[in-house]
Structures are given as C-alpha cells and as structure tokens.
C-alpha cells in the first residue's frame, strides 16, 4: 500500500512519543481501540491553569496510519484550549495525512482519543 509522504514522515519521525504522569491532576489520559482490532491509541494532554494544552504525548499500537494520526494530533493539540481540541474532526486528520478510505478508521480513533483525554481531564477537575 502506498502511503502519502506525510504519513511516512510521521511514522518514521513520530512527534511527542512518551507518557505523562496519569495521576497528575493537570493531565488527561485517553486510551481507545483494542488489540483485537489491531490498533490502540493512548493520548495524554497536560493542561495549564489558563486552560491551554501545554503538552501532549502519545503511544500507539497499530498500522502506519494509526501512528501517524496520533503523532499529528499531538502537534495540533498544543496551544489549543479544550473546546478547540474537541473541535478537531477525523476528516481534518484524514485530509491532512491523505489517508486512503481503508485507513479512515485510524483518524476516527485519533479523534476518539482526543475526546477521551479531554473527558478524563474534565472528570478529574470537576470535583
């Protein structure tokens, strides 16, 4: 399967790989997908007191498109507030990475990961 140069770039030089302390109140963690389906994404965001995402990290088990989708969203998330983060659509990701139709689910998973991370942060900080 031929991938776009952008997928190959993110796959070969993934941005923001790693983990943040999931017990930190400032950190929201989202883990979506399942090994049985061939992809699992873990996305973490660190939100400042001003409500702006300061840092984002990911780890992904999955195909090249899944890795590239999660790498891309970590770049996009930094500097956004939570509402802006939640406005990121899977179609934006698919378009940026020029994903073929069979790989669209990778971008859906990345969107779900953002929503899960934001939800986790909000749950932690609503008390």
């Amino acid at each position, binding site marked *: 399967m031929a991938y776009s140069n952008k997928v190959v770039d993110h796959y070969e030089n993934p941005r923001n790989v790693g983990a943040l302390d999931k017990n930190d109140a400032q950190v929201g963690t989202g883990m979506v*997908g*399942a090994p049985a389906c*061939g992809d699992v994404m873990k996305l973490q965001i660190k939100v400042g007191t001003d409500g702006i995402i300061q840092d984002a990290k990911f780890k992904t088990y999955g195909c090249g498109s899944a890795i590239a989708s999660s790498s891309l969203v970590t770049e996009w998330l930094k500097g956004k507030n939570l509402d802006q983060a939640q406005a990121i659509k899977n179609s934006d990701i698919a378009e940026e990475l020029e994903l073929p139709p069979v790989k669209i689910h990778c971008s859906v998973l990345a969107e779900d990961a953002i929503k899960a991370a934001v939800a986790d942060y909000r749950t932690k900080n609503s008390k």
Partner: protein
Amino acid sequence: MTLQLPIYLDSAATTKLDPRVLEKMMPFLTNEFGNPASRSHGFGWSAEAAVEHAREQVASAVGCDSKEIVWTSGATESINLAVKGAALFYQDKGKHLITVKTEHKATLDTMRELERIGFEVTYLTPETDGLLDLTKLAAAIRPDTILISVMYVNNEIGVVQDVAAIGNLCREKGIIFHVDAAQAVGKVKFSLADLNVDLMSFSAHKVYGPKGIGVLYVRRKPRVRLQPLIHGGGHERGFRSGTLPTHQIVGMGAAFELATQEMASELPRIKYLRDKLLAGLQQMEEVYLNGDLEHRVAHNLNVSFNYVEGESLMMAVKDIAVSSGSACTSASLEPSYVLRALGRNDELAHSSIRFSISRFNTEEEIDYTVKLLQEKVTKLRELSPLWEMYKDGIDVANFEWSSHDTQRDVILH
C-alpha cells in the same frame, strides 16, 4: 559480495525465475513458436516434443506417469478442476466434502461455491500446531463423503500434513483424495508412487519457474474421473481445453527437474538460514513461533512479535520483502484466518510476519534481517501502549477495552 537491498524473503508468495529455467524457455518465446497441437508441420512437431519432454520431467519429479499430468494455468485452476471436477462427476455417490480451515483460499472459495450449488462441506479445525488430527478427520467421514482435500504444505505457516496417512484412510473408505501441493515441490521429499493420492495440484512459480502454468495430477490406476471446467478442442485428454503455452510448460518442466535434483544440497543450507533467523529473532522477548517447527518446511518461518502491529512492522522493515498476517495488509481488516484457526488470539495474529527463504538468499541477508528486526521491533515497542502495559505488569489480554466494535461498525457498514 555487497548486500543488495531490498532483500526478498517472500518466496512463499512467488519465487524469482531461475536463470537456468529462463534459458530453456527462451527458444520457445522466439523461433520455436509452433502450436503443439499442429500435426501438419515441423513447427508443431518440435513444440509438441518440448511439451512431452516437460511432461516427463514433471512426472519424474513427482513420481507418476506422464499420462497422469494435465497442464493448467496454475495451482488455483488445478484445485478448481480437481475439487469441482470430482464433486460434479461423483455427485450421484454423495454430496459431502471435507477440507481444513487453514487451506488456501483456492480450495476454501471453491468449496464455498460447491456449497452454493447444493454440496455440503465440513471444515476441520487443525490442532494449535497447525497439524490435522487424523482421528478428527476419520470422525468427520460420512457414508456420503466423496472427496477430501488437504494441502501438503501450508502457505502461511509451512507445516507439513501427513499426506501418506490421510491417503491410506481415504483409500480404505473409497473417498477421492486431493492434495494441494503448490508449496511442497522441492521442499518435501515425496513420490506419488508411494502415496494414495488421487489428485494433486502443482504450480511452477513457487519453484523458481514461470507464473501462469500449473499441473493437475490425475491418477489412472485406480482411475479418477473429472467433469472438465473448460471446454473447446479436447486438449489434455479432454480434461482441459486450450492451446498449450509451450514456453511456460518448458519452464515448469525445467524448474521441477532442478527442484528435485537440487533438493538434497539445497535443503540443509536453507534450513541453516531459517534456524539462524529464528535464533536471532528469539533473542527478543515475547516472540512467538506460529505452527509446528518439526513438521515444517525449511523455507518457512512465521513469528508473532507481541505488542507490535504487523503492518507497521513491515513498514519499518521496508528493506526486506515479507508478508504479514495483520488485518491491515488486507482490504478486509480481518487478521490471518490461518492463525485464527490455530487458536492464536487476534493480537498475535495482527503481529505476525512470514519470512520465506529461497535458494537465492544468502547468510549475509539473514544477518541483516535479524539486525533490522531487532532494531525496529524495539523501536515500535517503545511506541506501543501495550508494551508499556506489559512492562507495568498489566494483563493486556484480559484488560477491559473500550467499545471499539461500535466505532468499527460506524466506519465499515
């Protein structure tokens, strides 16, 4: 010798044409262009002589009479002709067929088609090592069973079935036995003279021959009859009409002759390379061999690298050409049905890579492959949340995963 990249380690998909085979084919692509069915001039006579020589070569390589060889377009056509041809011819005796879940799609899809037109098929599950339990096969036989089809060597995991024992069982019960031997020639030593096999399918391009040519062996004593699928001209004793492709037939004959001649010297070398590859990969943790190692051809290695997804691994090792059982390599998004039939979980099926070694691979290439795999698996595991969980002592297999199915349904349906 300098290492040439990429390295081809996918010989179970197809092999490179041996230059010695090409040399034999060339005259029939140039000056010797006659139709072997032309009886009225020298062009036809020399083409016919070449076809008959190749028929002898194939017959002698597999241990049968040359009159039992039927040329086809490849193993897929041979399997179709064997299974459909026998089922249709003998349907008055019964309409039940038996095969195995790990067969090639050429057999499975042919069986599905026969089910559509009123036949009944039993698909046996192999043991976790990929081998068929003969007591389970015997138990599946019914009074109306007319044909059993089992592959000699599995294309994904390379395991070798006990064709001799299955043949004896079939003969005793009076059931036609077809064997898909596309992956067996030059890899397993056998002779049809010693086996109770009625029909056997072969391909040239898995044995360093050209694509587009195959053979169906049809036993004469006791005689097996088939309903032909392709009509027109009555070539190949009516089993398969159509002008014979002389150059490809010559290539298949030469390739089969070479394969059996060189097997004794070639197999120990290939096995040495395969074992070295396996030992190198097993230096890493959480690497699983798929299929039995002992009852396996020397050419094949199928391993799962746990917590790494197969397609992304193939992307990482693009200097080597291999196959993966990962869903992402197919349009269906289903992981390898062969590994699933062995009881491997989806996760390990997604993480599998098939390496298949050919006569052209070198030790230097294997050393390079081991080094590359070690480097890339480590890199991808650093990227893998599953590896992180495994390292943290979390049981990944029994972890409660989110409702992934609903997400998939939205996308796929």
